[in-house]
């Protein structure tokens, strides 16, 4: 993550929003000044050491700092963890995700963990114990009648009285089981000493260790260099693995498999189903925290499901969601780490990538209530080329297949492309749409199962397809899409190539921004340039079927917006502007970078607008802070004031929602 000025601003605002001004100021200073020690910080912020320590402690608690203490050094140096600070904006999303995948009690636990930062398990248990007892007592006292006065606190008029179904977490055993499940899903991991070291520091330490241990005489030759890289990667992976220690422990436990199975079910687990006592009790001294990396994987899944909904039906998207859930169960992060995970390739090639999911696995996890016949049109059987539909792509795009015959097959279909291509121009639309050569692949790889299977299940006699066939229809549709949602990587085996898919999604996001700002014709022009590369201004009107004057105006408009660029090529040495060629082109990566920057700024603006509103409604907000008003705003406040107050709440809600919406875009552009 590149920490630019708007990012710094945003992080500071977020921390201010959540933890107050003091930590925010320290954080902003750390970001702008880089690694600093306590005395240096005191110098930059002109705060007292006491204030600083307090602020640093808060930041530390919420994992927003790295610190490093060199042996023998007097002061530890602190560094801002901008990544985590940015993640604060996602908290709402993460909680919602936990809610829908793990149920309300899990969300409640997660929320506590978010509010208190990293927490010792025993502390969490103690906090809950108190809550549970209180709730039990209250329940006993009140019985059925009456409602607890809604405990709207402070500005938050929206706090939902948490009493409807009793406390979310019913017992400490229940709490224990929730934590176990979240740990197994890797959404929670363990804090260990190295957690607080910045990646750069960890790298340095590991490097030193490796050098001391394996290369005391220095590194000589290419082979040794490669080995060094591998050893370092290994060391780094070991450090990373430490935070998963709890998960490993749980997995060693006998009942892990069973619990895992329950967990895998997408059906929001209801409290009763799970036998809490089966879970091993956790070491109360362990300190746990939220693992944002894995949370992002889950959020990415949801974004992709949304993407699929935009392109297809909700039913297809639902199937896709199940597939993704299964596929990414053991995927620790969205993007592999350039140092650690690339070296990993060499040794364990097999384990690389997300693997695949079979049709049966998906079928086993579909809700029985979902009608799979929805969402796809019907066509006569003779109008369906099953060989095209069932086309198996064993390898991700771009990667050369390793089996020679398969390569021949690929070439053959390329020839076909050229056959009836009127001109080479459009070929980029469907370069990824190779004519299928199903039989060839079958022959080569001996995986003839697919076709036979399809014919069996979609036999001519039946009108209504059976469920597995219906499921396959959705999967095949996803596989056929231009966005390549799914790759049919073997008979009844499905996988997802995330990098190209995310590129497609990024392009879709960019396109919608272009279309919304520059109109459909703007989008048309950009996509023409994307397809054809650089294009002379004189050639454009003919391709775009637009009037020259309109086109020029549109191009200038889009140049200002950063969607396209122009290059002037003089015709002769005199470089007469009138005679020059003007070549338009678009640099997608640059546009995306700019979009990211705009997104950060937009988020900053949203929060600043909110801050301005707070200033404006200061008197109202002051009033709501009074203890005699708090919780009874409606009854105690003057009507006009209450209206202003509720209007402010509405604005606040909309602004935060907008920040979260923009973050959706940032995630796609930067993290997924």
């Amino acid at each position: 993550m590149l920490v630019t000025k708007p990012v710094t601003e945003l992080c500071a605002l977020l921390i201010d929003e959540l933890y107050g001004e003091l930590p925010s100021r320290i954080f902003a200073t750390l970001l702008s000044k880089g690694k600093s020690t306590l005395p240096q910080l005191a110098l930059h912020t002109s705060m007292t050491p006491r204030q600083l320590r307090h602020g640093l402690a808060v930041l530390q608690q919420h994992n927003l700092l790295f610190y490093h203490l060199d042996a023998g050094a007097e002061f530890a140096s602190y560094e801002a963890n901008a990544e985590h600070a940015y993640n604060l904006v996602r908290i709402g999303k993460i909680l919602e995700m936990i809610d829908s995948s793990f149920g309300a009690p899990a969300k409640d636990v997660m929320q506590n963990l978010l509010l208190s930062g990293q927490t010792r398990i025993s502390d969490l248990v103690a906090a809950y114990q108190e809550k549970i007892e209180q709730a039990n007592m209250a329940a006993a006292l009140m019985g059925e009648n009456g409602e607890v006065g809604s405990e709207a606190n402070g500005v938050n008029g929206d706090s939902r009285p948490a009493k409807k179904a009793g406390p979310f977490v019913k017992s400490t055993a229940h709490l224990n089981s929730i934590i176990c499940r979240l740990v197994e899903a890797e959404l929670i991991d363990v804090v260990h000493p190295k957690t607080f070291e910045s990646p750069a520091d960890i790298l340095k330490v590991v490097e030193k260790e490796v050098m001391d241990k394996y290369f005391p005489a220095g590194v000589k030759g290419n082979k040794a260099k490669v080995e060094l890289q591998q050893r370092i990667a290994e060391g780094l992976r070991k450090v990373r693995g430490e935070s998963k220690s709890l998960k490993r422990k749980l997995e060693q436990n006998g009942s892990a498999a069973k619990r895992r199975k329950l967990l895998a079910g997408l059906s929001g687990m209801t409290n009763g189903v799970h036998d809490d006592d089966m879970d091993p009790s956790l070491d109360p001294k362990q300190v746990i925290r939220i693992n944002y990396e894995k949370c992002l994987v889950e959020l990415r899944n949801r974004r992709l499901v949304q993407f699929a909904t935009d392109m297809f039906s909700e039913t297809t998207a639902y199937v896709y969601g199940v597939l993704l859930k299964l596929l990414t169960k053991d995927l620790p992060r969205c993007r592999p780490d350039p140092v650690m995970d690339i070296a990993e390739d060499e040794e364990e090639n097999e384990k690389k990538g997300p693997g695949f999911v079979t049709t049966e696995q998906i079928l086993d996890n579909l809700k029985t209530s979902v009608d799979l016949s929805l969402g796809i049109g019907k066509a006569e059987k003779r109008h369906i080329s099953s060989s095209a539909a069932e086309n198996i792509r064993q390898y991700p795009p771009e990667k050369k297949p390793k089996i020679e015959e398969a390569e021949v097959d690929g070439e053959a279909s390329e020839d076909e492309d050229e056959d009836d291509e009127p001109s080479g121009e459009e070929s980029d639309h469907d370069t990824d749409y190779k004519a299928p050569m199903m039989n060839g692949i079958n022959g080569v790889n001996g995986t003839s199962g697919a076709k036979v299977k399809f014919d069996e299940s979609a036999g001519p006699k039946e009108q209504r397809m059976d469920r597995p066939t219906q499921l396959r229809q959705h999967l095949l549709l996803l596989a056929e899409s231009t966005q390549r949602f799914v790759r049919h990587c073997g008979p009844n085996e499905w996988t997802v190539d995330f990098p190209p898919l995310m590129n497609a999604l990024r392009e879709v996001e960019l396109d919608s921004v272009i279309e919304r700002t520059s109109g459909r014709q703007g989008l048309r022009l950009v996509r023409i340039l994307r397809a054809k590369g650089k294009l002379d201004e004189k050639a454009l009107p003919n391709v775009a079927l637009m009037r020259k004057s309109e086109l020029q105006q549109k191009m200038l408009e889009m140049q200002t917006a950063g969607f396209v660029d122009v290059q002037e090529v003089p015709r002769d040495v005199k470089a007469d502007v009138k005679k020059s060629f003007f070549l338009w082109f678009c640099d997608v990566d640059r546009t995306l970078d700019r979009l990211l920057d705009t997104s950060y700024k937009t988020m900053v603006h949203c929060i600043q607008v909110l801050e301005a509103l707070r200033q404006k409604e200061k008197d109202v907000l002051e009033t709501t802070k009074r203890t005699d008003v708090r919780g009874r705003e409606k009854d105690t406040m003057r009507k006009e004031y209450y209206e202003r107050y509720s209007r402010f709440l509405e604005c606040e809600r909309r602004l935060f929602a907008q920040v979260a919406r923009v973050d959706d875009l940032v995630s796609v552009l930067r993290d997924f």
Partner: protein
Amino acid sequence: MAANGIADDSAKLQILKDALYDEIRQHGSETRLFGQQDLLDLNIIPRNDVTLLVRVIQALTDDKLLVGTTNHHAGLAWRWRSREEAKKYTSLPNDETVMVYSIIDEAGADGIWNRTIKNRLNMHEAVVKNCIKYLEQKGYIASMKNVEHPNKKMYIKATLRPSERATGGPWFTEGELDTAFISELESIVFEYIKTKSAYRGSQAQPGGAASSSGGAIKVPKKGAISSGEATPRGTKRAATDISTDDASPAPTLNTSRGGNAKSRAVFLPMPAGYNQYPTVAEIAKFIHDTGITNNTTLGEADIQQLVDVLTYDGLIEPVRVGRRRGYRVTRAMKQDTVPFHKRQKEREAGIGLDQPLVVGAEPLSNGLTEAPCGRCPVFELCEEGGPVSPSNCVYFLQWLDLEDVPAAVAPNVALPP
């Protein structure tokens, strides 16, 4: 004898002229160039007599029946001209007019600019003007428009139709890109592809699920998150309140089985492997059959151009199944099931005027396009402390419906006494 000889000679010349001219016409079109050897090889001139040939050619050229040109490879060469045309030439009153006419003639179907005529012939403007006027009156030439140079006054031989390059092809009318015609045709082509590439079915309307209404912009709604008691600071929001409308992967339940569910018409994507997506040839045939383009002929290449534009617009996408390259509509489910021409009719009747009428589904949106900053004209300048800043932003006030917020209402205390 001598006189007789001359008369004899000219008679002989006349015969040779006619014979050579007829023979040349047998050997190719008006554009073919004949070199000297070619003409000799026609075996009209006895004994391959070059001098005689030159005389015959000279005579033909004087009659404007042959046009001499200098060719790069063959040197001097000639092409023939029809007798009618030649007559036009010979009927012209003076040399200037002949020169002007011949230069327009040479320009062919592309036409020529009057300034170019003047410059090339090095004549006075008034003279050229007169010649042109004469020729136009005679109906020998006509003025024309060239799309590449819309402001230049161009002339063309009246018997020729302006070339494609000059008219700009079927998309131009009178030298102007006919955008109305194009968009009309686009909508027809799109409608055709839409109905041919997606399945018209019906879908149960899930009760109240907002996400099912096609293409509607999602209004961010608040996630149902309760804030615990542990709000860190009074006026600050709890961490959890930063929420999103991140659509939960709520599946479509099989409401269709339930009897009372309302259903609506939707387009559904075709199953994978569908091989009947319309091809350009089919679309061209359809357009031809409808007869919409009665006075313009559209070839497959023209339709391809139109289809490409629709592809660039993101409305359709090419699909190759087997050897067949067809086109299908994108985001089938989000398409309007009411045909476009019906919508146009509705509009004429005054329905739906509040929304722009465009083909295809509404574009997707994201956080940036929804927020005011995403379309803000002063975005680059906007900064806290600058002349435009979020705290004095009018766009956000509009967006939050706060435009008319009265500054502090009359009584200055929040609580009643």
